[in-house]
């Protein structure tokens, strides 16, 4: 027997492409714009969201029958806030420099629309295992876009990947830089992320016209 049934696999795979939280549902844009100037920050942010959304979805799903619906938003906030504080403390303990780069954006995972959206739309109505898969899937879909954007912005903006120079040294003029190449300062600033995300959306929709919204 396969590890996952086809339906369960769909829970993980759909958000990666045709139901991507960023490019299709257009949620969680703020952090995608803010922290993707470096690939490392994008990866850490993705891992943090995978943890928060995976665990959070399970917790909410387990409690779904005992949460009074009038205060469910507050309960959801408490769950996600607890998890985010855990992530924040872990980052501060083991990756202090990185937690300074990410700054307020770890704390702002609480307000990430994807997380509350999945709690509301999925975890409150489904069992823990399915909710877990759905949480992981959506967080991965978010992470994939973050990493693609982070990859291009760091590569073109700073000429490095994960802090390692790719094109040579811009100051000593080695590698590509000796031919007059220069880093693209536009990719460092947040509007560039908007444009890169826009291009991803454009490419995705022109490959799959079924995704284009009617208006």
């Amino acid at each position, binding site marked *: 027997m396969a590890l996952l049934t086809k339906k369960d696999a769909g829970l993980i795979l759909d958000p990666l492409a045709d139901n991507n939280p960023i490019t299709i549902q257009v949620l969680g844009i703020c952090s995608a714009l803010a922290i993707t100037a470096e690939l490392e920050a994008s990866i850490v942010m993705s891992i943090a969201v995978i943890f928060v959304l995976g665990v959070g979805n399970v917790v909410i799903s387990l409690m779904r029958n005992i949460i009074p619906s009038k205060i469910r938003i507050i309960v959801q906030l408490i769950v996600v806030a607890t998890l985010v504080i855990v992530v924040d403390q872990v980052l501060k303990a083991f990756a202090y420099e990185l937690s300074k780069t990410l700054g307020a954006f770890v704390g702002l995972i609480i307000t990430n629309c994807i997380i509350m959206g999945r709690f509301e739309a999925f975890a409150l109505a489904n069992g823990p295992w399915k909710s877990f898969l759905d949480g992981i899937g959506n967080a991965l879909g978010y992470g994939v876009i973050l990493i693609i954007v982070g990859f291009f912005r760091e590569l073109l903006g700073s000429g490095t990947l994960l802090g390692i120079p790719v094109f040579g040294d811009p100051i000593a003029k080695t590698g590509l830089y000796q031919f*007059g*190449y*220069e880093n*693209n*300062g*536009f990719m460092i600033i947040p509007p560039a992320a908007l*444009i890169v995300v826009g291009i991803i959306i454009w490419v995705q929709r022109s490959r799959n016209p079924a995704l284009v919204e009617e208006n």
Partner: protein
Amino acid sequence: MSLKSKLHETKMKFQGKKMAPAFNAIHTFLFAPNETTHNGSHVRGADDLKRTMNTVIMALVPVLIFSIFNAGYQHYAGLNGFPENFSLMEHFLTWENAWIGIIKVLPLLAVSYGVGLLVEFIFAVIKGHEVEEGYLVTGILVPLIVPVDTPLWMLAVAVVFGVVIGKEVFGGTGMNILNPALTIRAFLFFAYPTWMSGDKVWVHQARERSEQILAGATDIDAISGETILGYLAQNKGAAMEAKYTVMDMFWGFVPGSVGETSAFLCLLGGLFLIFSKIASWRIMVSAVIGSLVMGLIFNGVVDQGWIGETSKFYGLMSFDYWKHLIVGGLAFGIVYMATDPVTGAQTNRGKWIYGFLIGFISVMIRVFNPAYPEGVFLAILLMNVFAPTIDHYVIRGNVNRRMKRLKNAVVHPKDSDGKAVELQAETV
């Protein structure tokens, strides 16, 4: 067989194939097509898109020629100092000046057209429609609004970005929100600021030489290539006035982006565009008014003594209000950029507001921008974004006024001869 019929045959051979738009484009670029309308009679104006574009290009050719000579003139003036008794033929229209222009300005033009048209061709083939003439004007504007030493590969990257993100994503020519030429410039400005701002980029070799001198070379002369606004931003107004007269600024014998320096040629081009009814005089006039008003406000602030001579804004704020029009890119921007019929306001009242705010904001950004004492391209891009909003409210205002008039109107019944009937007492 003539070239035209050969082209026609090739075109017919590829009709319906994938590459058809590319061949059609070459054909229609060189000749008017043979086909005429098949049924029905239509009144057609001769001023189609191609002719509109060509008129703007004609208005820009003098600017281009001037900029070729000015590139060399500024280079040699930076090296040897400005000539004492300036004569146009002896010092400006010389072969050595033209040579610098030919090796620096024409490659920019070639890259701009080559890359831009290539992108247009690729998109036409992908979308399967005719190639649009939209790039013809953008292609000549782009080299005129960048510094003379801009590396060609940077320009190519920027042109790809500007045409794809500035125009094609919105649906191509006529659908764009932002002026593509200014999008290209804005991209260069934010992506490669060291090549687009500062004192050393405006004159050929100024940057190269200052780098070599920094590296320890002693046998070469430095070129100080500050623009007039650059001097003023550093509160060196007196030094600037010793170097450039008002007439220099007006004729354009000053450093700056390739083609923006000559207010005189922009004025000529502007008049040409107004009389050929291509560009809107409303936008030009209101933009001039807007910049004068902002300049007067700043002059007033200085006259009131609210800004001391030590303030970093003093130089630019105390600059005579009308001189803002003849330095920097304001004249060029007003005549050739703000009047773009696609990205500007469409309604007549909207054009007044749109133009006024362009002039107003240009001078404001010019004075307050800490990194770069120029703001015309930013102001025009900003107003491009707001142009549809302005039009929307102008049209709403019109509709509301007419609705009101309609409600208050007294309807006079008419008899069969069209004469108003005396209203009976009970019908009133």
